[in-house]
């Protein structure tokens, strides 16, 4: 059974069809890339899947359960994480606290949240992520004081803190120093192997996506133009035309 099944998602803004009937499946453990020129509806599709906007039509199933119209809160607690195009770290909290915060709402009771230890038992998990992302040396600094690339790593680490079974990564390479992109890819591969979750990755860096993903979906003008293995997408004439023109 697919971990995520997206069926005929549509989203229209006035006269513009941002997403026009997109369908695809994500298999357990799979890393699926979503590519497409700017304005092709990738982020709108993400937001529709995650309940951050309400699609006009379509159905989304997570592990066989209909999650269409579910709120980001409900989806997060079901085990679906995400990162955003723009930085979403909590700048005044330390990096370590950001990581703990990202996991703590998934467990415990009302009284536990009021009176339990502030790390809620997630100190070890946070340390594990700090080690994995090589952020130990800045762990106790306010997240807002870190470089953009470091904050981007924090963003990604936060999404993985609660051990989600599906993570949607929106342009993880955006703003990251090109010399660090390969390292980021290796990290994601390691997380995929270690945690066994599935990822959906939106990205414009073709080299990154082709080396990272098991399959790639190419979107153009709100619709799926092609789906296939990275080498199939790279050789697809329609995809090349969509990016480079005729």
């Amino acid at each position: 059974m697919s971990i995520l099944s997206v069926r005929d998602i549509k989203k229209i803004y006035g006269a513009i069809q941002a997403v026009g009937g997109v369908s695809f499946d994500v298999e357990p453990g799979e890393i699926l890339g979503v590519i497409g020129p700017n304005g092709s509806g990738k982020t709108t599709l993400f937001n529709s899947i995650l309940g951050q906007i309400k699609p006009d039509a379509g159905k989304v199933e997570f592990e066989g359960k209909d999650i269409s119209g579910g709120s980001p809160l409900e989806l997060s607690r079901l085990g679906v994480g995400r990162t955003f195009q723009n930085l979403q770290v909590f700048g005044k909290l330390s990096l370590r606290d950001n990581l703990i915060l990202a996991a703590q709402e998934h467990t415990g009771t009302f009284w536990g949240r009021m009176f339990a230890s502030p790390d809620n038992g997630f100190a070890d998990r946070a340390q594990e992520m700090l080690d994995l992302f090589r952020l130990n040396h800045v762990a106790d600094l306010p997240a807002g004081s870190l470089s953009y690339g470091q904050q981007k790593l924090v963003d990604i680490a936060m999404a993985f803190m609660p051990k989600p079974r599906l993570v949607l990564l929106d342009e993880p390479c955006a703003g990251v120093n090109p010399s660090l992109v390969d390292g980021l890819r290796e990290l994601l591969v390691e997380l995929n192997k270690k945690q066994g979750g599935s990822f959906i990755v939106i990205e414009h860096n073709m080299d990154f996506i082709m080396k990272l993903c098991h399959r790639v979906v190419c979107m153009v003008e709100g619709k799926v133009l092609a789906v296939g293995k990275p080498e199939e997408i790279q050789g697809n004439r329609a995809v090349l035309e969509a990016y480079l023109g005729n």
Partner: protein
Amino acid sequence: MTDFMQLLLSGVAMGAIYAMAALGFTLLWQAAGTINFAQGEFVMLPAFAMLIGMSMGLPLWASFIVAVALSILVLGAAFKKWIVDPMRGSGVVSVVVATLGLSIGLKSFVKAGYSAEPHPFPSIFGDEVFKLAGVTISYSDVGALVFAGLMVVGLQMFLNKTITGRAMQAVAQNTFSAEALGINVKRMIFYTFAINAILVSVTALLITPTYLAKFDMGDNIGLKAFFAAIIGGFNNSRGALLGGILVGVLENLAGAYLTPAYKDGVALVLFLAVILVKPDGLLGTPQERKV
């Protein structure tokens, strides 16, 4: 010198009380983007709730507990649900106008429904005084200072040391991201309103013996708390404490050494001076939101 110390201590005690109402201003702004211009009336209502409780034979402490419960229900949950939530999509100005209207409505309601006269209110700490190194100190000042101090420190600990407190901070800093991480944003915002309801109830308990319970007692308190919040920095809860104490101390000193007629103008002068020199407030930072 002893007069000065006496004025200083009672000023700090009064300032700590202002700080609690000011803290409510900053919390509501941080978590819910709400500026509550009915904050003064939010202090007045629990005072009358306690008066009614005492007139029914309840002791002051029991009346206070009932007032806190009613405040959470009315000034927390109902205020959020029926006034703030419907207005939030329309921007800050709509909420400001709505709370200004609410302020007038609440005053008129109490004036017409209860009384236009000022009513004496007992101090929970009594009226006795004691002398320390020649300085006459009232138990009421010390009690207010300790009580308000504990409230402010307790609130800081709650926000920084508990899971829920940090989730509230996260909501204040980035609602979108907090929701995606599974934080129940609506609940965290309600907690903020509930905390404000507790703060105004404690403020009422401590300040009403001085101001007397009157339908318009909130005018002065609300205004001074608002100035204190701006002086300290509207986006920093520690700033509310600093602003409150500055207002309390300076108005006490001005009342004694200049003229009592200028006492109530001190907060305004200080407010003007601070926003001219440091528009974000003494401890505020540009474009930051943090509870």
